[in-house]
């Protein structure tokens, strides 16, 4: 999120695309409804499904799954064609506008109508609404990201806000609601295969920086790898790790994966789950670390699984990061119960037994304060330098002194600071940055320009040269250079450089333009590509997918060879997955809560009355849903008009059944969840984002058969 939840109260328009905040983020709804009521902000919801959020919308747009980029580019085109875009903002702070204009011009309302199914008139109307109500905020979630063009989708959203001039403004911004508590924290720690903590990447420079922070010898770390190549090579992702075991697609690694650790994650959130199950059967070792005996443990039917009971969040303490980049200290409420151990303890025991406690654990004397301190020492890129445990605790203890509107403390021990020190919090006395890219405030007071990450000048393929730094006169107040400036050399690894920059009123990472044309992406300007499994074979030719990518996070990933126009004949129905308000993520925790299980006891497939009648299905009847990859689930029909007559929706939070077979016998007695059902991800399809390899669970095809 570039802004924060409370800031949504200032929005004059709310544009949701691929988000069902009413079910996935109910607590955020108070700010959304506040803006709707008090600012009379139009609430535009773009979604294939008439969600509970859509029920609160003023304008609901039903869109065909997987065509978000086309719709967004259609809006951008309207803004440009009708001169509704923020010309001054584009002139001073945006790069690659000409290239964007050229690409966007293809998406006329009629073209958009053909691709997305949204009436041409509606596209123009929504664009006008966006232009008339500024600043507006754009909010998205997994409905945007979980596509094979997910990275294009997200960029299209950002470009839309750039065109509207809504970036860096209170009430504007791109606000991506994170799906779980502390997911932003996990992301900042880069619990990912392609980066070290703090988004440092895997370059030698990054390794050396972190070796310095940890106090570990770089050469020793290097010696731990099979060879140097693997030190800089992204590993498998969550979405496709199982291919490293079953090797249906060719892997580019010297050995298949032999062991896997599931630490606080629901494996049933991985698409094509029946293949994940196959991987469980081939692995030598599966370790599950969770407060609950979860689905992963129950799915391992070979005697290869160890379950380590960890504590819940109430039995441990530490800093957590909210969706809006704020840190908060979470205190312990009760001591760990039964045999459970805190995650810190489990990690410590591991490190000790592996024999490198003297290396990685050098700085950790007091848990968890020293861990937080180490993070502050290491994550300079996102400015966590100011996140000292004492400061975070002080904020948490004095939360009542902060203003609900601006997050700024009025008086008290945290006077002038923003609640939770939203990062970047550059120095130990920086107040935090509540709104990213806001040039109306000095950097030392929470202002920020766009980051200068990609040099100072670029030559586009057509020969046009453009200065990538911000225009003359555009900088934060008090900046030594009133205009664009490049990044300070060495700011990512040296705190003193950061301090020096702040002292001069400048951002350590420079002051640049936001790019509409990203030359390091497969599609420099976002463009529509039909889903791999498209229900519109006629459009595949016009908007084909990418060529296959052989070494995509160590595994061959099919694009072109997977996109077959004839598939839609056999699998004519579009499948999307999503959340229900009663269950959380994979649901291992919530389905074991009797009250939540009572409210939502079993899984269902939402089917439009028209589709149900065509197949002769009645409400409550059982039906088989089959995916092109061979997954099939037996599921109850819920006839509803939430979905249209080409789409079915399944909540993904269930497990306990597997392709018609009950898995309850695999749970220890008394540990079975109350609510059970087929994991929806058994029938989600092949398809992964070209950049991030996120799974495309919101653009699948399937067929249904009466059970």
């Amino acid at each position, binding site marked *: 999120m570039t802004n924060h939840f409370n800031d949504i109260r200032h929005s004059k328009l709310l544009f949701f695309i691929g988000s069902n905040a009413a079910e996935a983020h109910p607590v955020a709804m108070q700010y959304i409804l506040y803006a709707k*009521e008090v600012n009379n902000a*139009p609430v535009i919801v773009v979604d294939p499904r008439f969600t509970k959020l859509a029920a609160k*919308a*003023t*304008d*609901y747009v039903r869109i065909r799954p997987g065509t978000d980029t086309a719709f967004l580019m259609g809006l951008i085109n309207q803004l440009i064609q009708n001169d509704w875009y923020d010309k001054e903002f584009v002139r001073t702070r945006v790069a690659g506008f000409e290239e964007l204009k050229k690409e966007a011009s293809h998406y006329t309302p009629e073209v958009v109508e053909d691709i997305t199914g949204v009436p041409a008139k509606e596209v123009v109307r929504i664009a006008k609404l966006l232009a008339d109500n500024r600043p507006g905020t754009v909010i998205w979630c997994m409905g945007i990201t979980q596509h094979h063009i997910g990275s294009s989708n997200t960029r299209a959203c950002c470009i839309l806000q750039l065109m509207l001039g809504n970036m860096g403004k209170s009430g504007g911004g791109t606000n991506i609601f994170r799906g779980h508590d502390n997911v932003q924290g996990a992301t900042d720690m880069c619990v990912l295969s392609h980066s070290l903590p703090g988004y440092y990447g895997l370059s030698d420079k990054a390794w050396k920086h972190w070796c310095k922070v940890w106090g570990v010898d770089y050469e020793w770390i290097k010696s731990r790898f099979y060879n140097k190549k693997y030190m800089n090579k992204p590993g498998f992702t969550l979405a496709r790790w199982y291919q490293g075991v079953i090797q249906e697609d060719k892997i580019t690694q010297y050995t298949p994966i032999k062991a896997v650790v599931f630490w606080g994650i629901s494996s049933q959130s991985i698409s094509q789950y029946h293949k994940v199950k196959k991987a469980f059967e081939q692995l030598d070792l599966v370790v599950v670390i969770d407060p609950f005996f979860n689905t992963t443990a129950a799915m391992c039917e070979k005697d290869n699984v160890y379950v380590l009971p960890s504590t819940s969040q109430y039995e441990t303490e530490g800093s957590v990061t909210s969706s809006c980049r704020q840190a908060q200290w979470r205190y312990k409420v009760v001591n760990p119960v039964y045999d459970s151990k805190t995650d810190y303890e489990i990690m410590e025991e591991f490190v000790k037994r592996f024999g490198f406690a003297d290396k990685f654990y050098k700085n950790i004397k007091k848990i968890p304060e020293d861990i937080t301190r180490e993070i502050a020492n290491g994550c300079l890129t996102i400015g966590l330098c100011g996140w000292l445990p004492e400061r975070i605790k002080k904020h948490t203890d004095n939360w009542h002194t902060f203003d609900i509107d601006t997050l700024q403390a009025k008086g008290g021990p945290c006077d002038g600071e923003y609640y939770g020190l939203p990062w970047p919090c550059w120095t130990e006395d920086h107040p935090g940055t509540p709104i990213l890219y806001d040039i109306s405030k000095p950097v030392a007071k929470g202002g920020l320009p766009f980051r200068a990450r990609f040099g100072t000048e670029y030559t586009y393929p057509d020969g046009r040269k453009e200065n990538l730094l911000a225009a003359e006169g555009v900088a934060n107040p008090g900046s030594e250079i009133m205009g664009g400036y490049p990044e300070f050399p060495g700011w990512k690894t040296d705190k003193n450089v950061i301090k020096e920059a702040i002292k001069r009123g400048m951002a350590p990472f420079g002051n640049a333009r936001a790019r509409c044309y990203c030359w390091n992406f497969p599609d420099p300007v976002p463009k529509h590509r039909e889903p791999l499994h498209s229900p519109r074979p006629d459009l595949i030719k016009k908007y084909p997918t990418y060529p296959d990518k052989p070494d995509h996070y160590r595994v061959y990933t099919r694009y072109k060879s997977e996109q077959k126009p004839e598939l839609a004949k056999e699998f004519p129905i579009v499948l999307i997955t999503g959340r229900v308000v009663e269950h959380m993520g994979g649901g291992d925790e919530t389905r074991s809560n009797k009250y939540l299980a009572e409210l939502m006891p079993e899984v269902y497939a939402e089917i439009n009355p028209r589709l149900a009648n065509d197949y002769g299905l009645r409400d409550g009847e059982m039906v088989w849903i089959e995916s092109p990859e061979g997954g099939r689930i037996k599921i109850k029909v819920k006839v509803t008009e939430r979905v249209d007559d080409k789409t079915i929706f399944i909540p993904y939070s269930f497990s306990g059944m597997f392709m018609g077979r009950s898995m309850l016998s695999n749970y220890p007695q008394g540990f079975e969840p109350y609510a059970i059902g087929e994991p929806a991800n058994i029938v989600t399809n092949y398809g992964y984002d070209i950049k991030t390899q996120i799974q495309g669970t919101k653009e699948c095809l399937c067929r249904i058969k009466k059970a």
Partner: protein
Amino acid sequence: MNKKIFLGLLFIIGALADTAFAQTAPAKAYLIDIWYGFYNAIVGDWAKNAPLFIEYVTKMKPVYLLVVIGVPSVFLLHYLIIGPKKFSHEGEQILYYDVFARIIHWLAALFFSLLVFTGLIIIFANVFGGGSFVKFCRYVHLISAFGFGITVVPMFLMWLKDMLPAPYDIKWFLILGGYLSKKKRPIPAGKYNAGQKMWFWLATLGGGFMLFTGFYIYLFNTSLETLRLYTLLHMLLGIAIVALFFTHIYMSMIAIKGALWSMITGYKSADEVSILHSKYYEKLKKKA
């Protein structure tokens, strides 16, 4: 009263009133549709007969009180003014009830009395302080209902023929069974007089209806709308049953001296039969 009951409801209406302003959505649902949607989902058909239910259920208690106090008082007066009928229990004895009939009668009587008394306790629950005693009575009420349900069937079958109405029953009603006079005159009645017949039909068919409604009230397995109706009928019919129950006890135990013994030994004296069941006595005579 109804107006006040709706006060709570008014808050929902209030909660909806603003939709008139805030409805900026191009929704095809009108305010009134939404209001009716909520009304139907929450209140449903409550307004149809629940106010009636509330009104009558609250009035039922005094009526029962009247019956419980009034009926015995009338009998007390009758006892004091007219007094019981006395018959000679010597001489010829007529077998009136065989062993089977007696057993069935007493079993049914046991369950029936339990039903009546526990039923009254439930109605006057506040007098008994509610709680576990009355709750216990509810369970007794249930078990007795099962017992009565089993015994009422043979009872109904064995007496059905003799309980069919006859023309002279009208005459019996006209003189109120002769209970208002002290004179011993043959009273027009078959094996069972019209009063007994009335009691029989009320106890069996009425009892059956009580079982039927009671079953639903106990299990709550029908719509609230139907339940309200059943509960009202259960209580209304209960008034008649309680009144006749007291009458039956008074007649058999007090008003006719020794009548109780006929249900124990099975025999009635010819003297009694010739007066109280004159038509039956004539028939017996003819047969002999």
